[in-house]
């Protein structure tokens, strides 16, 4: 009997601890059930920075189209800041390039490129004109996937994203004029092709510059590049800080590329990443092609 009692005591103590632990775990479980499922934190007053990537793209496109309509760069910059892009210029350029590459289904590529170019200009510098053909806004935006709208209650201390002074829109902003594009009668010619061995540049960087007959950069020139496994399209003028006629593409080493400027008629073949020698050893270099109207 004594022996049995002495054996029971440890199990009784363990049981005492277990029911406390069980209670704690049950409580935690109920707490998580309540806070994660029954009454989770509700986000009804979100900011554009938290939007899903495709909605951000549509928001960005609207900002660009609005800038095209009003010419209010300060307000557009303030709006772009709401999206939280690390580099708004890069985001605009990438989206414009992507839109152009996809055939510009929403007609926003021109506006995106135009705003990107405006952001890349130093202050007080008149905007150079762009060459891309303006797409009439007949394309449809994708229908939203969101459910019925949640009418959020206005906050007490609203933060207006736009900081610019009120702008009167008495007359629509004139469209930017277009620069002459390479015509069929004056095909572009490959003026130069050189290897660039600069360790400061990205490896495999293919730089393309398109100039008109006067030596002025041509923005919006389409470039098609092919390689055995694929094809890509890009355009000049999407990195205005590097020049309106500039475009680049990252090549993969040991892959042969061919390139053609749209409408140029000149197909440049056999392009590949060159091997360069530097102080620190061999490295992959880049290429620089210059096309020019005769």
């Amino acid at each position, binding site marked *: 009997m004594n022996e049995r009692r002495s054996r029971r005591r440890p199990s009784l103590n363990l049981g005492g601890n277990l029911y406390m632990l069980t209670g704690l775990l049950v409580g935690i479980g109920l707490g998580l059930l309540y*806070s994660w499922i029954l009454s989770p934190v509700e986000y009804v007053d979100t900011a554009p920075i938290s939007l899903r990537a495709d909605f951000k793209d549509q928001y960005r496109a609207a900002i660009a189209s609005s800038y095209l309509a009003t010419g209010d760069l300060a307000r557009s910059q303030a709006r772009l800041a709401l999206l939280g892009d690390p580099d708004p210029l890069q985001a605009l350029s990438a989206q414009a390039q992507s839109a152009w590459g996809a055939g510009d289904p929403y007609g926003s590529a021109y506006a995106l490129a135009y705003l990107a170019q405006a952001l890349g200009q130093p202050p007080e510098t008149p905007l150079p004109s762009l060459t891309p053909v303006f797409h009439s806004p007949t394309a449809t935006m994708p229908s939203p996937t969101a459910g019925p709208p949640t009418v959020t209650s*206005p906050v007490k201390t*609203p933060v207006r994203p736009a900081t610019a002074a009120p702008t009167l829109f008495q007359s629509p902003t004139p469209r930017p004029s277009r620069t002459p594009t390479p015509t069929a009668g004056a095909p572009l010619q490959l003026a130069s092709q050189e290897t660039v061995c600069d360790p400061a540049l990205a490896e495999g960087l293919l730089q393309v510059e398109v100039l008109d007959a006067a030596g002025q950069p041509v923005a919006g020139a389409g470039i098609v590049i092919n390689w055995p496994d694929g094809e890509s399209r890009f355009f000049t003028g999407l990195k205005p800080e590097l020049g309106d006629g500039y475009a680049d593409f990252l090549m993969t080493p040991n892959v042969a590329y061919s390139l053609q400027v749209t409408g140029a008629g000149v197909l440049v073949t056999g392009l590949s990443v060159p091997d360069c020698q530097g102080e620190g050893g061999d490295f992959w270099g880049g290429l620089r092609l210059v096309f020019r109207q005769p």
Partner: protein
Amino acid sequence: MSSRWVRFLLAILCGLALGVLYGWVISPVEYVDTTPDTLRADYRLDYVLMTAEIYHSEQDLDLAARRLALLGSAHPSQIAAEALVTATHLGSPEADRLLVQSLAAALLNWEPSPGGGAP
């Protein structure tokens, strides 16, 4: 025995508090891919204002309606009207209010064009 029940219930309450603390404060549900219909009222207003600015320039009501569809499935005129209320409430500049008002008025009788799909 009753003491054990009390301690058991206390343990549950402690766990409940810990669970709620963890779920609400330490690791709340994160919303990173939100939809535009959850935007705060002033951001919704700014988006409607952008649409109004574009409409003022392009005069394309269908496109304006499709742009507003990003903010929800309500009729575009209702979305614009709500934005106008917000603009008035926030004391937005008169020029901005006029633009939104003009868009809301234009959208009043707008209906999706056949084959164009709902906004």
